[in-house]
């Protein structure tokens, strides 16, 4: 029993990391129809910046939090402004290619500005262990689960009650027409990018604390992308659950079957679900009418 | 006696809405039948059922006595059902020729491997299809845009390409969904001429959805009026035109117009 609970808890912890990044994929997709393939890299860069801030300020968690959130926003806005905005209205695959180009650049930047070494990111009590009735968890892992639920609540409220949320959907559906409604599509994109950077940055930083900080951190993006698909590309909240499902499934398969099947288990689940629901668990069906 | 196309008590539901509700209709070789009715009456849905895009909820559709229930959707066209679409459904990135050639698809047999070799039957078929397509292009007077990508054509030109593509399928009955919408008088005249010619030269039956009453009244043999998915009336154009139900729900001509007009105007005025 404890064994199962321990599997579940570590599954949730890693699943929450996937979930946060998956949400950032989804929010950009939902508001601009674009898949940002450099999401994992962005979360890595933000984690590195947080690390630099923390080593520079003796790990004061508040300064690190404020500094890295601030950086995440500025960074996302800069990327959006410089690389993405000019591509608006171009074929979607060209836009996606630009994000792939960005990912190459970001990976190079990390090793250029920092190094290729793994680091232990110590921040406040992030690494400390907490005991939950015999199950030990790191503080950072609790934090990431909490952050995920905060993000879910925030996004739900936002899309439920805000007209800006509606405008985001409109831009994704057809940015040209959204402009005809007076929507400043650029601003919508900026907001989406900023939100996504904050979410994936949080995931990156907390992952770095609980596990390690290294230039292979970007691989999280490749894990989160399937989670987004599972939840439904345009469902920000659905993709959060997609992440949790994959995290837990991986751990259960690793814990009961075999860890060499871990990687595949997630995919098999996704394919099975997609065969029944081709738009993911919570995704919007594409309108088909003649 | 089996009709070319016969619908019996056809119903189609979307969730709670009965988009088509117990419609019966039949059409003979060489007939032109128009379907009219207010927006959302179920006309396009009716076409979607006949062309296999949607399955019927209840009722039956048959072509030359053959029930379509067991036929897979992509084979409807082989029984002679061709159609155009209200909202244009062209293959945007293909050229005009490519688009019309797709209409010939089912009449060709080339397999993937033959196609890759482009030899023998594959080449013969291709030439034959191309010849037919050139005829259609000439008939529709769109030679000058033959090699253009259809996405860059104007709306009206695209409609003609759609008509061409439907003709290329060698239909026995041709379903035209608001084919002259967005065309001016002159272009409408052209299309009217095409429709009459198609009927005359090929003996194709035509089922026409149209809001242009002049066209409907001028060229139809019979008119079928729908509202809320149900048949209001069916008959000669003049009879349908003066049918009170049709006037009230759809035409609003004469007195109806005067009634509806100020009513709306007043409501709007109040709201403003």
């Amino acid at each position, binding site marked *: 029993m404890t064994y199962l609970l321990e599997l579940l808890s570590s599954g949730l912890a890693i699943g929450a990391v996937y979930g946060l990044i998956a949400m950032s994929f989804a929010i950009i997709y939902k508001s601009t129809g674009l898949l940002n393939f450099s999401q994992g890299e962005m979360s890595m860069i933000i984690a590195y910046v947080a690390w630099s801030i923390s080593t520079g300020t003796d790990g004061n968690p508040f300064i690190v939090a404020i500094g890295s959130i601030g950086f995440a926003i500025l960074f996302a806005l800069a990327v959006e402004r410089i690389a993405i905005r000019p591509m608006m209205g171009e074929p979607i695959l060209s836009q996606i290619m630009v994000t792939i180009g960005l990912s190459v650049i970001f990976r190079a930047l990390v*090793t250029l500005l920092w190094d290729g070494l793994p680091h232990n990111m110590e921040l406040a009590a992030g690494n400390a262990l907490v005991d939950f009735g015999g199950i030990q968890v790191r503080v950072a892992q609790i934090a990431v689960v909490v952050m995920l639920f905060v993000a879910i609540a925030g996004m739900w409220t936002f899309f439920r009650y805000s007209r800006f949320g509606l405008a985001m959907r409109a831009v994704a559906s057809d940015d040209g027409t959204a402009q005809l409604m007076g929507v400043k599509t650029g601003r919508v994109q900026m907001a989406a990018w900023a939100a996504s950077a904050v979410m994936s940055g949080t995931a990156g930083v907390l992952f770095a604390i609980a596990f390690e900080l290294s230039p292979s951190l970007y691989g999280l993006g490749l894990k989160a992308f399937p989670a987004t698909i599972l939840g439904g590309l345009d469902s920000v909240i659905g993709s959060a659950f997609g992440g949790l499902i994959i995290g837990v499934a991986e751990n259960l398969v690793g814990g009961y079957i075999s860890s060499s099947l871990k990687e595949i288990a997630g995919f098999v689940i996704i394919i099975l679900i997609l065969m029944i629901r081709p738009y993911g668990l919570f995704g919007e069906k594409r309108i088909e009418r003649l | 006696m089996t009709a070319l196309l016969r619908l019996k008590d056809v119903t189609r539901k979307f969730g709670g809405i009965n988009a088509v509700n117990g419609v019966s209709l039949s059409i003979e070789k060489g007939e032109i039948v128009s379907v009219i009715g207010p927006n959302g009456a179920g006309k396009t849905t009716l076409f979607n059922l006949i062309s296999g895009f949607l399955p019927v909820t209840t009722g039956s559709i048959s072509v030359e006595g053959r029930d379509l229930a067991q036929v897979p959707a992509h084979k409807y066209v082989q029984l002679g059902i061709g159609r155009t679409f209200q909202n244009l459904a062209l293959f945007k990135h293909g050229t005009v020729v490519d688009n019309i050639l797709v209409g010939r698809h089912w009449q060709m047999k080339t397999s993937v491997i033959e196609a890759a070799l482009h030899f023998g039957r594959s080449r013969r078929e291709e030439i034959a299809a191309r010849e037919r397509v050139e005829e259609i292009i000439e008939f529709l007077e769109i030679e000058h845009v033959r090699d253009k990508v259809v996405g860059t054509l104007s709306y009206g030109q695209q409609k003609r390409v759609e008509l061409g593509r439907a003709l290329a399928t060698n239909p026995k009955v041709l379903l035209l969904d608001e084919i002259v919408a967005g065309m001016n008088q002159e272009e409408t005249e052209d299309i009217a001429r095409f429709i009459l010619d198609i009927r005359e030269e090929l003996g194709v039956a035509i089922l026409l959805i149209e809001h242009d009453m002049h066209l409907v009244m001028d060229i139809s043999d019979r008119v079928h009026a729908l509202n809320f998915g149900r048949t209001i009336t069916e008959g000669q154009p003049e009879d349908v035109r003066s049918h009170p139900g049709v006037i009230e729900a759809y035409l609003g001509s004469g007195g109806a117009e005067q009634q509806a007009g100020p009513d709306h105007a007043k409501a709007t005025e109040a709201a403003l």
Partner: protein
Amino acid sequence: AEQGITDTEILLGDVAPFTGPPGLLGIAHNVGVKLAIAEVNAAGGIAGRQVKLVSEDDGYVTSRTIQSIRKLIGVDKVFALTAMSGTGQAMASMPIVKQAGIPAMVPIGQLPAMYEPPINNVFVVGQTYTEGMRQLALYLAKTHPGAKWGVILQDDDYGKALADGLEQAQADAEINIVFETKYARGQKDFASEMLRVKAANVDVLIAGGIISENIGIVKEAEKLSITPTIAAFWPGRVPEVLKAIGPASDGLIGVDYVTPIQSEAGQAFVELAKNYLSEEEVPRINRYTMTGYASTKVLLTAIKACETDLTWACTIEKMQSNPPVETGVMAPVRFGEDNRFSNSPVTIMRADFETLSYSPVKD
């Protein structure tokens, strides 16, 4: 003259990953190669020629390794190769190198297939993973009699080599493996694996990851508060890994054929390096610097022995006939008529978190 030789220069080439996480290995290796070269050049070069190095980055991608090797041989026309990246990359390069006949060193990722049967111009310096693993297992079996073993291996040829070593050790000693698993390369979360380790009450754990994976494994053990003796292999035997794991890395058992930096010989090596390397390069020194240095030194010794009559044939001949070469960081290196493998002996060592270093275990 042979390619890569002018009146004033001898050109060497190497291919290694300088980007991405494997860059940890490639960059350190390159520093070692440079050190060996600088040492020779400072002593007046070889028969009046200065030695120069051309480096190619392959990012640990096999196709790029092959492209790079072709470029080094065909375009840059180097005289010899000091490295061909990692295990799989070097394996894939063998046909080209063999065909070209260029003298080539293999200081990283040694596999028996690279020297059995011997390839005339390819020299493997160091020890195979299999033998290293065998020695490590024998040591652990001796020090932990009756222990339950857990094994976590990567699902590639590296993991396979370790598995072979373990199997060989089982022939000679009592090793009771109660849990064994393979993971896909690049995995980061080892929670489920370690839970199974915990459930199996493992006393000795072979952490067969490279860098990140071992960090993950040890940190997870800490989280589950289990304290098996954890043994890791040399690819990740660098201070950065200890630092990244944190205090839990204390007592980690390692194995290597080059000397630990904290040993006397290791310190001497660092001192030597400081004389020749830039300030940026010194902190990058790790075990790969030593292997790079040693293999290059062996190569340069052979080249030197040829003096003015510098050809591939001569170099290869000298490589096999030279007396054992003393490198200071590992046992003397020698090859023979039909021996292309230095078969360097390994030492077992233990990690110390405070100094971020390893020191040889006293039996």
